[in-house]
């Protein structure tokens, strides 16, 4: 065995070490002044000096910037140089992408006798710290025991692979006592109602006991994560019975709207709409919450890796062209000493999630130009990680496909390991303080290059017509993918043929493993050789593991024995429907009482709140330009740092048509009324698209519900109300839902206490733009232009950013008048289409005040605003309330003087008023309801307030 260390030359600064010094200071430990990171490689081999020199000196180290050292086991005496040392390595069985690359490169050097490679990182820390502070640095920053350990003398670099001796496990069900039955039920996580159905199935239909892998298959297929039981439940609500909440609200609206350009809705891995005569766009947003709570980097990276495979597994396979990510965390300044046991600090979760998603998306070469980040203390133990992907696919193959009996089942991409065992069931229960100890196998670290290689070949195979159907291996692994594909025909799989990362997996583990970067294809037998060759050409693993049958059974063989033989009908349709009471009571909050405020100070505070502040630090670490289609970027304006509304790309490079993507989310409104929260999220997701020049004619939306434990009538009542709003708004705006997702049990339990997340609904929107050359950005363009507001401002500060700053919720939640909103949006689309609008920004968190400030400092131009001109409704007598109200369906619009007549003509019948103009002086000047001057704030100060919080 050889150990090689590579480190930067001493005179060069170590940027990653410097980042760690900052992170250590964030932990409240000030003593560390210098950190350097050393790369450690272990080679399992017995190499001559010249070979080692070649590997270390010309492959692993860059001689211009780095020094290297190699030897047997002795380490460099860094502690003699005043450093304290922490060396960190991955746990056995955790994916280490680097070791595969190193193996390959060593083979390229012509050295073939290196049997294995392991890597580690050695952190050298200099400074005055106590041993307990060192422990804190290790445990809170450098090591996550879920996937890593600190290396010591007893550590083994190349552990023996565990061996597995096949023994077939039957679960005694038919003769079991009541107590034994209850234990089995709990072991597999079935509800009593589900377990009764299963027991009866084995007694009457099969007349035998189940095997363990059969129960695992049922548990996975019937998990909340996979079958969405709660959303499909029957609820008694407000004197009526709602049978299948999902179908009777969201799906129903789409059916009633019956848009001919909706090509595939709610039936495939992503929803699909028409783009042009040849192309279609598909869109899916997923959540990856629980894994991200315990291992932020790995959890989030597999979240984006997983959602990318949804478009890839839609129709005959789409090319991912855009990502959108929405994260919900507790505030980064949450006091560390108040953290519940078992919870990672929100700052660490934030940084880990950001890095995990960006590293994966950037390596896949998919732009991430859209997203949002929300903060609320209730996300402390259970952060939310939404990842969404848009794909491009020819219309002719965009619909869900079918395969024939006799088609081969081929698994492609990554190998199967023990990673992600029970991920689907893990994400279907709430988290608790022991989660991070029991969940290690549910968390994985993705390998984006494996996925990229797979994607590259899949698109070639698709275009050659080599496979008849495709789906992704997501939650539930092969069990879910093959089980769902074979639902109508039947499938037989030989588990011995599944390529494994290492030995020691049981047959059940092979079947339910959620190892990443895998897809399953149905391939006509005559294409077998051609498709295997295509994958082999680019070094992508592909293996025939079975075939689709015609007996409508799911059959698995292992070492010559049939270990699973289930009726497909029962597997997919047998799950009993949930039935429950749902109620909704309007809560009452105190209305805040405060006066004598300083508007400028208030505006700076609102601009600098975690929710409103600039997210540039995050945005810049995503590649938002790759693929070359960028038209409207996430950062716009005279200094490329203003907060754009929707993002616009050209999916097809030689066409002027565009795709526009946005999102709407505001959880605080849901504390008052989930109905208006959902309506507001839809309004926001639409108005962002309209603000850049999109059009209601062709916009589709996705729903993404994250809720707490759905076991109380109140929790379910909130869900019913939000779903009803989705139905009502979808119909009223004429905007169909095409896909969605729901995640329940988002709660954290510790020391007998529970934190449920706020009801969270993300609405993601996608639209088609006929001519990208006509879209506009939100930054002010020219002095002397008029500023208009569209829409009515009411006393709607309930759940607002402004009230939150005053520690209040209030009751007047923003409502949506979809008829008025639709008229406003249609008129605005027309005005932009005619080239009459130079800049437009919607009013969202922080209302008109934040919108105008952002427009001004993004354009580097001042503005004068007269609040008395703002069209108002209801009792609204305070300047600050007009300024910060979050009434929906409002836009601030910049119009050049020569276009005002035409603009006003188009706005006939719309609530529209001139509220000011663009000025030369770089200040935001606001006059109150009585015409008095209430603010004259330098733009530089406003911008600084907005940029400072997340300038990390």
């Amino acid at each position: 065995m050889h150990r090689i260390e590579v480190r930067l030359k001493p005179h060069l600064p170590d940027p990653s070490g410097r980042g760690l010094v900052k992170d250590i200071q964030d932990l409240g430990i000030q003593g560390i002044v210098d950190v350097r990171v050393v790369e450690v490689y272990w080679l399992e081999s017995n190499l001559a000096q010249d070979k080692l020199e070649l590997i270390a000196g010309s492959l692993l180290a860059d001689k211009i910037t780095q020094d290297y050292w190699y030897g047997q086991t002795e380490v460099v005496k860094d502690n003699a140089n005043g450093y304290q040392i922490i060396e960190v390595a991955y746990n056995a069985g955790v994916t280490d992408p680097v070791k595969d690359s190193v193996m390959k490169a060593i083979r390229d050097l012509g050295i073939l006798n290196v049997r294995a490679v392991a890597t580690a990182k050695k952190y050298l820390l200099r400074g005055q710290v106590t041993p307990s502070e060192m422990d804190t640095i290790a445990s809170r920053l450098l090591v996550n025991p879920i996937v890593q350990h600190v290396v010591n003398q007893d550590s083994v670099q190349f552990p023996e692979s565990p061996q597995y001796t096949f023994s077939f496990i039957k679960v005694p069900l038919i003769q079991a006592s009541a107590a034994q039955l209850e234990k089995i039920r709990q072991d597999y996580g079935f509800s009593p109602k589900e377990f009764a159905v299963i027991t009866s199935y084995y007694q009457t239909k099969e007349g035998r006991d189940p095997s363990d892998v059969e129960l695992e298959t049922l548990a996975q297929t019937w998990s909340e994560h996979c079958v969405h039981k709660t959303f499909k439940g029957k609820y008694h609500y407000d004197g009526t019975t709602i049978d299948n909440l999902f179908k009777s609200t969201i799906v129903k609206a789409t059916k009633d709207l019956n848009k001919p350009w909706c090509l595939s809705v709610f039936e495939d891995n992503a929803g699909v709409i028409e783009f042009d005569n040849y192309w279609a766009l598909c869109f899916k947003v997923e959540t990856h919450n629980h894994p991200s709570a315990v291992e932020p980097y790995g959890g989030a990276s597999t979240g984006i890796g997983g959602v990318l495979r949804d478009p890839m597994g839609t129709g005959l396979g789409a090319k991912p062209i855009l990502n959108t990510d929405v994260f919900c965390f507790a505030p980064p300044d949450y006091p560390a000493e108040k953290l519940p046991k078992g919870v990672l600090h929100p700052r660490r979760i934030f940084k880990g999630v950001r890095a995990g998603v960006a590293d994966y998306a950037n390596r896949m070469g998919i732009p991430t130009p859209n997203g949002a980040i929300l903060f609320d203390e209730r996300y402390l133990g259970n952060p939310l990680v939404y990842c969404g992907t848009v794909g491009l696919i020819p219309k002719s193959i965009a619909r869900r496909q079918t395969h024939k009996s006799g088609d081969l089942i081929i698994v492609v991409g990554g190998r199967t390991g023990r990673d992600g065992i029970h991920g689907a069931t893990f994400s279907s229960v709430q988290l608790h303080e022991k989660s991070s100890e029991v969940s290690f196998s549910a968390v994985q670290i993705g390998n984006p290059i494996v996925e990229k290689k797979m994607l590259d070949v899949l698109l070639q195979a698709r275009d050659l017509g080599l496979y008849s159907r495709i789906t992704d291996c997501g939650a539930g692994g092969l069990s879910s993918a093959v089980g769902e594909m074979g639902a109508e025909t039947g499938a037989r799989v030989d588990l011995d043929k599944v390529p494994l990362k290492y030995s020691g997996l049981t047959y059940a583990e092979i079947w339910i493993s959620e190892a990443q970067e895998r897809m399953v294809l149905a391939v006509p037998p005559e294409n077998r050789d051609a498709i295997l060759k295509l994958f082999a050409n680019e070094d992508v693993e592909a293996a025939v593991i079975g075939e689709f049958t015609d007996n409508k059974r799911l059959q698995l063989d292992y070492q010559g024995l049939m270990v699973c033989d289930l009726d497909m009908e029962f597997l997919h349709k047998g799950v009993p429907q949930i039935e429950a009471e749902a109620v909704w009571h309007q809560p009452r909050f105190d209305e805040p009482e405060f006066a004598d405020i300083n508007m400028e100070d208030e505006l700076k505070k609102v601009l600098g709140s975690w929710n409103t502040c600039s997210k540039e630090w995050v945005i810049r670490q995503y590649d938002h330009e790759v693929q070359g289609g960028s038209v409207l970027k996430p950062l716009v304006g005279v200094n490329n740092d203003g907060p754009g509304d929707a993002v616009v790309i050209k999916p097809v490079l030689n066409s002027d048509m565009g795709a526009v993507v946005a999102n709407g989310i505001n959880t605080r409104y849901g504390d008052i009324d989930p109905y208006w929260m959902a309506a507001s999220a839809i309004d926001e997701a639409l108005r962002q698209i309209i603000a850049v020049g999109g059009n209601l004619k062709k916009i589709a939306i996705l729903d993404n519900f994250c809720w707490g434990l759905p076991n109380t009538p109140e929790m379910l009542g909130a869900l019913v109300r939000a779903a009803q709003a989705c139905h009502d708004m979808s119909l009223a705006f004429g905007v169909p839902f095409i896909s969605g997702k729901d995640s329940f049990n988002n709660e954290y339990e510790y020391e007998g206490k529970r934190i449920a997340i706020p009801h969270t609904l993300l609405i993601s929107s996608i639209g088609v733009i006929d001519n990208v050359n006509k879209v506009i950005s939100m930054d002010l363009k020219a002095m002397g232009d008029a500023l208009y507001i569209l829409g009515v401002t009411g006393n709607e500060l309930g759940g607002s950013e402004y009230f939150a700053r005053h520690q209040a919720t209030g009751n007047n939640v923003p409502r949506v008048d979809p008829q008025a909103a639709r008229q406003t949006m249609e008129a605005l689309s027309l005005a932009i289409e005619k080239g009459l609008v130079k800049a437009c920004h919607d009013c969202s968190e922080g209302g008109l005040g934040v919108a105008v400030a952002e427009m001004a400092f993004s354009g580097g131009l001042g503005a004068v605003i007269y609040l008395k001109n703002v069209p108002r409704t209801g009792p609204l007598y305070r300047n600050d309330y007009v300024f910060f109200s979050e009434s929906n369906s409002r836009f601030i619009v910049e119009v050049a003087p020569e276009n005002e007549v035409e603009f006003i003509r188009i706005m006939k019948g719309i609530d529209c008023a001139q509220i000011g103009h663009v000025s030369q002086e770089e200040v935001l000047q606001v006059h109150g309801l009585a015409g008095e001057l209430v603010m004259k704030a330098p733009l530089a100060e406003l911008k600084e307030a907005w940029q400072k919080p997340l300038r990390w």
Partner: protein
Amino acid sequence: MKKVNVLVLRGPGSNCDQETAFAFQQAGAAASLCHINQLIRRDRRITDYQIFVIPGGFTYGDDIAAGRILGNELKLKLGDDIRRFVESGGLILGICNGFQVMTKSGILPEMGSPQAPPLTLTHNDSGRFECRWVNLLINKKSPCVFTQGLDSIYLPVAHGEGKVVTDIRGLRELNSVLYYTDEAGDRRAGYPHNPNGSMDNIAGVCDSTGRIFALMPHPERHIRFTQHPQWTRKKAREFGDGLAIFQNAVKFARSK
């Protein structure tokens, strides 16, 4: 008119291949993608093309160091082909990861020259991957055929390991082609104008012939006007700044 054939290399983790090929097509060339295994198996040969492009991406996940593993592979498995291609007058363009690959494989700063000054790319001073637009000043004295006639251009960067490192001799002898500047064109501008801390603000380098050129910024991401981050504030133009780099290459190859 003579047809110019461009080969855009693909490897595990390449991801700017399609838009780079598109940019060459917009510049009038015939561009096709080619997986490195096809070249290694001799199914296709670089020498059948006039321009060889190593596009952006994260080949092999940037494992060990960005560009290291593909660079190793090119050097060991295709070294002779590349040498012949260069000797016969071919052009090589490396963008972003392509630049990294070309320094790690020794194609730059001077292919097959052990006397060449040291040149490598390392982690950005910020310690972060960053995507941002940069002002670039062209070195008018450079022999680079790709930048002929250009004064300054505006392009995006998107990388984590783009800091050019060399030594005193390198600063004197390297054929620097473009430099990061601020809006006023000042070559001494610091972060974020110089987004990675490159020595002497060097953003791109060519060899002594001027036919082998690599840069960290992405010219293929600014070939049309509406890719400019401030196009909604500006008067419409026909093309983006980056297109000229592809047009120059095609023009040069055509004239041979």
